[in-house]
């Protein structure tokens, strides 16, 4: 099937305005008759629930944490992009649009990206109105910095905690609506199934994580804002609870999964230090503004104290390979370069998996005080974790899975191929193409939540009868029974391995074979290993405790079970995409100098997969991508 993103046509500058006008509206008096379910309360979900509640819809919002304020959007450090062009440095909506398309290696939809760039400015205004304490200059104006390879300063920030501040802004708006009674909030609940009645999404089945109760919540539309899936690698910068579960359940009910192989590996994370490690910690990319990446030129020097390696024996590999962008090369490029150095045997630290990020030059130039002012909290965090003082010796960094550009397929209205199922934020695939630029995730989450879904959901709801569902429907009963059966099955295995042991093994398979560099061979190997692990899981896992209780082992087991199915799809997508683009790097497809080699003739499309049963071959649907405004070109950061 050829998918249609239903993008508006005509001059790109007019597309969103025209589309907004074309969308049907719901009469204000009728809005309260419609119920919308929002799963996830991060930037996208929180903003969406608050905004739709304010419009007058009845909203029910769900999160697995104990409070909507804790979603992992909170961990974003660097900032949020907007095309305000305050610094007078040549930025514009068009440039943000252009940079995002190019940064995504020409694998995103032009119209969606344009809309994102257009509403980016409203986001900043909205957040300021909410009381988000963005950094200001001495004149009282909003401050900007350049971030993540952008050549203009368009990033707004709140110290190193921008994600936290934006999320708390959305959370405060959400809290206001909860108080007003337009949003009903359910904390500590996890969505375990999507209810589709006659091909239309009408509700979800959830598990109350405190009591273990399995319950159905029905609504006129369901919005998933459930984040990304890079925890499939076990070790990632995501929170422990981040999972593919909600998306995967929707996928199993018919929603297409688009571009699952596009995962972003963030270049600056603290390297792994041992087998017991539970997660990796990201250090803001802003560090690369002043830090210089290097490894020793000679393998023998890798074991030495870095300060004993003389200047001429150091290989500043990013500056060498990308003279014009240097240490600020985009994430995918910087990550891969670090891996190359380590593969070459010149990595540093435990296991030889690390590169240095050195601030000595910057400290000499601007003084330790200034560096402390800029990155003090990051240096502190680094010291807490590694027990090393980065003012005295260079930091050690290694790439780690960080963000998933792929996600459920959605059209321009953010609606999936299942009518009534909307997908927002990182959970959808829409704007980042094959690689996301720094400070763009926050922008997308809030754009979707504040300024896209409130309009587009109206266009859908205006066309359906409100309250056209019943929790007594056979599909609901079936869904509850299936969820309960799944839980019973997990308890019945009573095997020998813990959930974490199998999860760790899956992560290892995925990181080694479907990680930063993928080959035909490694992917095929992974496709052999994953079903084995899945079998082992379903035959030999030990899930302790009871279902009718607060049970973190059970929660985790359910999430791992979904990862074990999803991993296969992700690997298949990576195998089928015979090209290298953005975060997806196939070793067979590279330029002579090792750069990614795209294949625009065969792969300038979105790969959307349809579920056909566990272990069965999924069906591939394609949505061709057209580039009318930004011309397909080879990305070059040299």
């Amino acid at each position, binding site marked *: 099937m050829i998918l249609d993103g239903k993008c508006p046509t005509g001059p790109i500058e007019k597309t969103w305005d025209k589309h907004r006008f074309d969308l049907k509206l719901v009469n204000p008096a009728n809005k309260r008759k419609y119920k919308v379910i929002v799963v996830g309360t991060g930037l996208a979900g929180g903003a969406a629930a608050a905004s739709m509640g304010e419009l007058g819809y009845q909203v029910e919002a769900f999160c697995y944490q104990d409070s909507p*304020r*804790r979603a992992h959007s909170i961990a974003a450090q660097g900032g949020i992009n907007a095309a305000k062009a305050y610094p007078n440095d040549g930025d514009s909506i068009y440039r943000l649009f252009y940079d995002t398309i190019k940064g995504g290696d020409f694998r995103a939809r032009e119209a969606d990206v344009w809309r994102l760039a257009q509403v980016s400015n409203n986001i900043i205004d909205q957040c300021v109105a909410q*009381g988000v304490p963005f950094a*200001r200059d001495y004149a009282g104006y909003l401050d900007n910095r350049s971030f993540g390879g952008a050549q203009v300063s368009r990033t707004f920030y709140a110290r190193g905690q921008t994600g936290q*501040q934006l999320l708390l802004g959305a959370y405060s708006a959400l809290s206001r609506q909860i108080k007003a009674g337009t949003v009903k909030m359910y904390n500590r609940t996890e969505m375990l199934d999507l209810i589709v009645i006659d091909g239309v999404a009408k509700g979800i089945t959830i598990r109350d994580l405190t009591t273990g109760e399995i319950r159905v919540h029905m609504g006129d539309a369901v919005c998933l804002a459930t984040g990304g899936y890079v925890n499939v690698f076990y070790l990632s910068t995501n*929170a422990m609870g981040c999972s593919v579960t909600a998306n995967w359940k929707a996928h199993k009910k018919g929603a297409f999964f688009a571009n699952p192989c596009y995962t972003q590996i963030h270049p600056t994370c603290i390297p792994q230090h041992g087998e017991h490690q*539970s997660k990796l910690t990201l250090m803001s990319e802003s560090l690369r503004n002043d830090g210089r990446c290097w490894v020793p030129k000679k393998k023998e020097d890798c074991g030495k104290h870095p300060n004993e390696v003389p200047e001429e024996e150091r290989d500043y590999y990013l500056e060498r390979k990308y003279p014009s962008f240097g240490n600020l090369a985009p994430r995918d490029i910087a990550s891969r370069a670090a891996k190359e150095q380590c593969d070459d045997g010149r990595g540093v630290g435990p296991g030889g998996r690390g590169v240095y990020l050195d601030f000595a030059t910057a400290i000499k130039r601007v003084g330790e005080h200034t560096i402390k002012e800029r990155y003090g909290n990051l240096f502190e965090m680094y010291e807490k974790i590694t027990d090393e003082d980065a003012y005295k010796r260079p930091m050690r960094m290694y790439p780690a899975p960080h963000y998933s550009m792929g996600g459920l397929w959605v059209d321009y209205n953010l609606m999936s191929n299942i009518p009534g199922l909307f997908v927002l934020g990182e959970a959808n695939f829409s704007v980042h193409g094959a690689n996301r630029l720094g400070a763009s995730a926050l922008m997308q989450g809030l754009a979707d939540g504040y300024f896209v879904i409130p309009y587009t959901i109206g266009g859908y709801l205006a066309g359906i009868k409100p309250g056209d569902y019943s929790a007594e429907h056979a599909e609901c009963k079936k869904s509850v029974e299936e969820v309960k059966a799944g839980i019973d099955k997990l308890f019945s295995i009573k095997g020998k391995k813990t959930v974490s042991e199998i999860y760790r093994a899956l992560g290892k398979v995925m990181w080694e074979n479907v990680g930063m560099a993928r080959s035909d061979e490694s992917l095929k190997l992974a496709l052999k290993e994953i079903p084995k692990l899945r079998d082992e899981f379903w035959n030999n896992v030990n899930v302790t405790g009871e279902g009718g209780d607060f049970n973190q082992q059970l929660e985790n087991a359910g999430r791992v079970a979904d990862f074990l199915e999803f991993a296969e799809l992700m690997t298949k997508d990576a195998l089928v995409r015979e090209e290298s683009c953005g975060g997806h790097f196939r070793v067979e497809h590279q330029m002579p100098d090792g750069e990614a080699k795209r294949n625009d003739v065969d792969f300038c499309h979105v790969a959307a997969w349809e579920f056909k049963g566990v272990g069965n071959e999924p069906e591939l649907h394609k949505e061709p991508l057209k580039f009318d405004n930004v011309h397909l070109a080879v990305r070059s950061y040299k």
Partner: protein
Amino acid sequence: MSDHNTMNLTLHVWRQKGPNAPGKLETYEAKNVSPDMSFLEMIDEVNEDLIKKGVEPIAFDHDCREGICGMCSQVINGVPHGGQDRTTVCQLHMRTFKDGDNIFIEPWRAKAFPIVKDLVVDRSALDTIIQAGGYTSCHTGGVADGNTILIPKPEADYAMDAAECIGCGACVAGCPNGSAMLFTSAKVSQLAVLPQGKVEAATRVNAMTEALQQCGFGNCSNHYECQAACPKGINVKFIAKLNREYLKAVFE
């Protein structure tokens, strides 16, 4: 880098089946703990052991494990988050302990935070306080350009200092009165100093302090234990600011 000598530790962990069940401290051994592990990774390992022994693993809240989500919540040796300056449990590393140490691990204790299970407590009372008024009542869309109202840098910085609160509830857990005044004051101060929040400052401080009381939190009697327990170092000057805002509201 710390040396790789492993440690053996004795843990005394609060175990409680449910909100109304009786609880008690159970003793577990944590063997071969690497100093590079985080505290939660150490408990992960203990849990793996417990599962293998057929004992139900210890339930504890955690999520981001990078010190920002505010989910982790354990009182370690009598101090919320373990007592390392400005550090959450998830960022506390085992190198701060010695071989042979006895470690007491308890949940947040306060009437407003009923225990869910083991070390997990219900902190929804903090949400209730925010819902009472911890926001500006701006609508989505239709707001002015972000630079229309200038905000002096010192005020923006002051607001940011207050806004760093992660809502973990350590202030309540540490407070001898089980008061959430530091939490409440951080939000009140952040919004009271910004022009966007000033408009509703009076109603906000009244509503939020009233909610604080109704949720069953205690009163602030200026012990300042909260500031010492806070993993973000939120200063008690914000409580003074809240008091000031309250008095202003009374006389307005």
